[in-house]
Structure formats: C-alpha cells, structure tokens
C-alpha cells in the first residue's frame, strides 16, 4: 500500500501525554493498510474459488485479514442479498469484510442495509466507473487539490523514534531528520537540513510528489509506496543536496544544483 514496510499503524498520534493516571480510552487518528477486494461478479462460488486459490500462496498472511469490498468493478449495482452472498464467500475464505469502498452507485443504501461503513478510497477514483459523477460523495482531496493547503512547517530536529506526518499537504522541515526518525507527507517532503532517517512523500499514492533535502544521508526514501533502502549511500549523493522523484515504477535520485 501507500507506505513502506515500517509500522504505519499510527501515523500521527496526538495523545495528551499524561504522566498521571491512564484515561479509560484514547481516541487516535490512525492510518492502516487495508486489503481491498475488487469484485467483478457477485457469484459467491466463483469468488470463493478464486480467493481460496490466491490465499493458498500465503495462507497465514490472509488469515482473519480485514478487507474492504470494492464494488465498482461490477456491471450493475448489486442488491443487498447479492452482497451478503459475497461477504459470506469472503468470510469462508478466511477473511473478514469490514466495509465498502466509495465510488459505486447505491453504496450508501447497501451500507445502511448491511451495517457496514463506507470507507473512502485514498487512491484517485478509477475512470472506468461512469456512475461516480452521478453520486457525488465527499472524496479525499486529490493530489492536485492538496496544493491548496499550506505546507506543514516543522522547525525542530525530528529525533530518532519521532514521526511527523503532513496530511493532504507538503511537509517542510527546517532542521535535521535524525537516523531512526520518519517524515511523511501526502504531498512533497522538503528538508532544509540533513536527512538521516526516512522520508516518504506521496503517502496517499501521489506519484508526482518528491522528496528534497539539503544533505542526503537517508536510510529510506519512498514516493507513492515505491521505496528504496540505502544500506550504503552512493558517494555522488552522500551529504549533497538531493531530490527524489518517481518515473513510472522507478525511483530516481539526483543532486540539486550541479
């Protein structure tokens, strides 16, 4: 999904650290990777067959995995009974349906009838769904819209173990990002200091996002989920101002200014 292999389950937690007593609950905003199953038929038998076949390749990985059903690949919008059949097939394959993705006609009605939440797609909506326009729903900001939000400015050193996330916008760090620290943005990441930790741009798969830094010593750089780990830093980049961008599936790095 969008973010490389590190633990991305708590992108940004803003828990008021209370040295005193523990509160009964913590409400936290978190982003988790989610398996999405896009179905092209509502035939439970066909779905179960295919899922079982796929799962056989990595059985433990899919065991009780939460999945989100994407109905946008269907010819016509399914009725409640059909979707129930699909959910049952998915469950028999060992996975648990926890929601429906947006972007298909009648999904709100299905959501109500099935008591399943509608989860918004991070990825740009697919063009193959003509019904999208007819069902205007709140959609996540598209990459191009993110330019409207001012960048998140972070002026302190990002220390080992810390994580800074700029949601739906660029991130500007005017200090160093230490080894073991992570800076993440849905837009571009700009670091006017040394980058010794991890930088992830386009966390919601904006492939045009870039990473810029003043002094390159990165552990990992990722753009829209395509990442590269630096066990050793190429000598032509080490300590230099560097930018990274995505060209198709290839992550490119070059020095800035000669």
């Amino acid at each position, binding site marked *: 999904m969008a973010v490389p292999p590190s633990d991305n389950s708590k992108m940004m937690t803003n828990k*008021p*650290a209370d*040295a*005193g007593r523990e509160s009964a609950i913590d409400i936290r905003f978190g982003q988790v990777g989610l398996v999405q199953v896009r179905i092209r038929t509502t035939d439970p038998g066909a779905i179960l067959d295919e899922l079982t076949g796929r799962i056989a390749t990595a059985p433990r990985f899919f065991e009780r995995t939460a999945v989100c059903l994407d109905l946008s690949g269907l010819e016509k919008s399914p009725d409640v009974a059909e979707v129930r059949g699909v959910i049952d097939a998915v469950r028999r394959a060992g996975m648990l349906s926890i929601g429906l993705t947006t972007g298909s006609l009648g999904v709100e009605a299905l959501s109500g009838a099935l008591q399943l939440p509608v989860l918004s797609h991070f990825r740009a909506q697919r063009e193959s769904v003509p019904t999208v326009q007819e069902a205007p729903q709140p959609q996540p900001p598209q990459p191009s819209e993110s330019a409207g939000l001012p960048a998140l400015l972070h002026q*302190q*050193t*990002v*220390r*080992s*173990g*810390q994580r800074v996330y700029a949601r739906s916008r660029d991130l500007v760090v005017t*200090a*160093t990002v*230490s*080894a*073991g*620290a992570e800076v993440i943005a849905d837009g571009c990441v700009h670091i006017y200091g040394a980058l*010794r930790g991890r930088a992830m741009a386009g966390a919601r798969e904006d492939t045009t996002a870039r990473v810029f830094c003043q002094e390159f010593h990165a552990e990992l750089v990722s753009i829209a989920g395509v990442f590269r780990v630096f066990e050793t830093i190429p000598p032509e980049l080490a300590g230099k101002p560097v930018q990274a961008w995505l060209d198709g599936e290839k992550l490119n790095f070059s020095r800035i200014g000669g």
Partner: protein
Amino acid sequence: MTEIIVVTSGKGGVGKTTTSASISCGLARRGKKVAVIDFDIGLRNLDLIMGCERRVVYDFVNVIQGDCTLKQALIKDKRIETLYVLAASQTRDKDALSPEGVRRVLDELTAEGFDYIICDSPAGIEKGAHLAMYFADRAVVVVNPEVSSVRDSDRILGLLASKTQRAEQGNGGVKEHLLLTRYSPRRVATGEMMSVTDVKEILGLDVIGVVPESADVLSASNAGIPVILNEESDASRAYDDAVSRLLGESLPLRFVDEPKKGFFARMFGG
C-alpha cells in the same frame, strides 16, 4: 528559584551517575544548595559513587510512600556543606515510583530552598527514565562518542521535546545540554572514535563539556569520591568547566585535542 536538572542518556554505562555526582558536587562547591536524587530504583548506585552507601537508612521510595519524612531520607554530604543525596531503593522496582509522589518530593525540596535538584536517570526509556525527566527544567544528555550512544541520545532528546511537563505546557520546553564522556582525543585522531564535531552535528546541540577517558574515573567511583573532587585529574577539570558552563559562563573546550608533544618528547619518544 529551584532548577531541576535531569542527567540522562538512554544508553547504560555512559557515565550518568558519575556525571550526576560530579555536577552536584561542582554546583554545591560554588555555594549552591543541591539535592541529587537516584531514580534508578532497584539498582541503586549513586550512593556508592557519592560514598554514602553505609548511611542510607531511608530512601526515595520510602519518602514517596510516606514511611519517613524527606528530612530523614536526605543524606548530608560529609565533604560539602550544601550537598544532599536521596538514595534509590535497592529492594523495590521502578513501579514504586508514581508521578504524584515524585512531584510531591520535588515540590518539598523546592520549598526547602534548594537551588538545584539533580535527577540521576536510569538507562532506558521506561518509567524510571520518564519520571526522572518529566519535571525537569534542563537536561544534561550524557553521550559517549560512539554510534549507539549517539542514537540513544537522539531518542532521549526526542522524548525530552515531547514527554516532559515543560513540553506539554508549551513553555519553552526543556533546555538541553550535551556532555561527552569517555572521550579519547588519541582515538579520535586515528578515526576509531567519533569527534566532538561529529556528535554535535548529528545531535544538533551545543556541548557543555567533554570529559576525557580517564582511569581516575574508575578509581574515584570505587573510592566513593566523585571524580570532580580529585583536583589532579583532567576529568575533574572537565567536569568543573561543565558546571561553569551550566551556570552560564563561556569557556573554551579543553581536552579535545591530542596533547602536543614537546621537542624532547618528539625526539626521544613520549
């Protein structure tokens, strides 16, 4: 006004307790009223370094749990009039510390008119270390010139910037200082050890002291005399400089370069 200074590092064995002992002696020698508290519950060491281990009757946990008064638990140093030690408990574990209890003890010390409270943090980032730093106004981060110590210090600096009372209240945060210990100019020159400049650059902080690697530190610890009191030692002078800098003086760093050999030493081998 009382200032609470935590001596911390993340990594173990870098010299936190040695530093706590020497800094508190250095401050007390300048006439400040100083209490030094061992937060390493269950692994008490500070009393050994301070040479008062046979006078520990009550400890920090006893005060927190109300078994005794603070006055009963504070051990007055025999060498310096204005220095007091609050030992850790050897028989309890870190769960005996509570935030309210620690706050109460610190408040009481403040009310007693102490100028400085030095909190000697345990290694790690668990409860003991957290409580040692939570109420601090300033932090002395002890770091050895090697990569794992630097990494751990970076982590600690991150916690100081987020998990302390000052950070939470947003009133300027904890003022951070870097203290390098076990520094060997010779090994830096041969590239075996990170230099002051390297460490400063990675951690992005100013250095308030560089304590050279010295056999005097070990012998002072074993004798129960904080190394700062051994006037013959380079380590003592380095710690004394660090205390001056803590108090706002600006002094050039000493003991960071390999001593230059004189003509005769060069001629005849030194």
